[in-house]
């Protein structure tokens, strides 16, 4: 009995060591490859800035389209960066090592998604108010937009991870990931923009944020499982 519990704690602690090193490594890699990490953020800022140039700088119009524009750009920027989520580890063989490790692949994938979110979703979230100000959004709507992005960007990372796992090792995976993941992300876009749109109206924005949170919980649970299944298929 004692030995059993002892071994259980031992494996769980060794699992934690594995997960911590995976997390640290992914964050470290993202910090080393500044062009990739910053590239996604500048892409985000650039796409958002293109809209006033294309549509015109009428303040009322900009205020109206701002949440949609910021959300769509966040979706695209997130898709751009998920391309590398598993591919680099696949190229240098680390992914196969992780598959062989005693730690469940689902937990490893979850950790990688978390690291990915810290390097993209979190930074998108921090950058978004600056862009929102460019679009003349009010403080109240910016708050709701940021709350929506805080709940919604983990979903982007989770679904992006599934797309990344399914297209592992393919030459032209970039466009394919977007084609696979973006249709699945439409509910996130809709709920995120609805929440901002509800600020001025008589509907409570928390309804949409609650639904978004439900999707977030679902995708955090099923995303790593589906991604791990995809990785197992690719490395079979």
């Amino acid at each position, binding site marked *: 009995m004692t030995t059993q519990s002892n071994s259980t704690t031992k494996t769980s602690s060794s699992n934690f060591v594995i997960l911590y090193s995976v997390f640290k490594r992914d964050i470290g890699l993202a910090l080393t490859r500044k062009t990739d990490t910053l590239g996604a953020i500048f892409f985000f800022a650039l796409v958002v800035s293109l809209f006033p140039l294309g549509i015109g700088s009428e303040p009322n119009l900009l205020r109206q389209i701002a949440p949609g524009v910021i959300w769509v750009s966040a979706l695209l920027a997130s898709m751009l960066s998920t391309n590398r989520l598993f591919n680099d580890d696949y190229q240098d063989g680390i992914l196969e090592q992780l598959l062989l490790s005693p730690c469940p692949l689902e937990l490893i994938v979850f950790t990688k998604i978390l690291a990915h979110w810290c390097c993209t979703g979190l930074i998108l979230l921090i950058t978004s108010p600056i862009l929102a100000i460019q679009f003349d959004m009010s403080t109240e709507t910016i708050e709701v937009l940021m709350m929506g992005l805080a709940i919604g960007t983990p979903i982007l990372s989770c679904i992006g991870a599934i797309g990344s796992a*399914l*297209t592992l090792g393919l030459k032209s995976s970039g466009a394919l990931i977007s084609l*696979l993941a973006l249709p*699945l992300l439409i*509910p996130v876009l809709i709920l995120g923009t609805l929440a901002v*749109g509800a600020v001025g109206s008589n509907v409570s924005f928390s309804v949409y944020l609650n639904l978004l949170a439900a999707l977030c919980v679902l995708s955090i649970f099923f995303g790593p499982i589906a991604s791990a299944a*995809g990785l197992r298929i690719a490395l079979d």
Partner: protein
Amino acid sequence: MDNSHLSSSQPTKKINWFAFSAPSRFYALTQKVIPLCWFMALSFGIAGLVIGLLYAPTDATQGDSYRIIFIHVPSAWMSMVLYTAMAFWAAIGLIFNARLAYRLSISIAPTGALMTFIALWTGALWGKPTWGTWWVWDARLTTELILLFLYIGYISLYQAIDDERKAAKAASLLAIIGVVNVPIIYFSVKWWNTLHQGATITMTKAPSMESSMLLALLLMTVAFWAYAFAAVFTRTNQTSLIEDHHADWVKTVLTSSKASS
């Protein structure tokens, strides 16, 4: 000509659910069914179109433009039914590791995408005279459009992976994720629509339907089902012949077809 091992009859009394999971037995069975399906698709389709276009009365509010529903409604139904069927066979394929189930699933996709496209196209043709616009961001239209993207994503993923087994498994996983997400997409689109657009247009058709209209619609639905079966089985069998080209049963099938022609 020795055709005994292609025989589809089972001597056992118990139902063997996996009897037709062997591509050879499935091939033998469907080769008999396919001509019947084509015949039904053609005859029911012609009958449905004749009744629908010539005998069904003109609609009081929509005029003759409503007649496109005889194509539009069956294709829209099929687009959804086929996606579910595709995901079902994908799941069966993943659970039992059955290659014929993967083949069925992949064979369904192009027909499903075609049906979705026809539904969208005919919907646009109907929308112009009735609503005055080709396209509205209505909940149903948007979901149907997303369904088309899901089909295309599934086909693209399968095409992109060279290894057939890996391609089938990866695409199956995607189909299952997609089918889980479809109701979520539908409801999210519906909520988004109700807030932004208001009840300007509803998709509800004429409340009561003339019996000849209903008959034409039913005939067309049967025709579309028969077409889908024929197309999917033909595609599945072609894939079987190509992928199992080294198997004995393919050689027997090919030599016997050569001898008969």
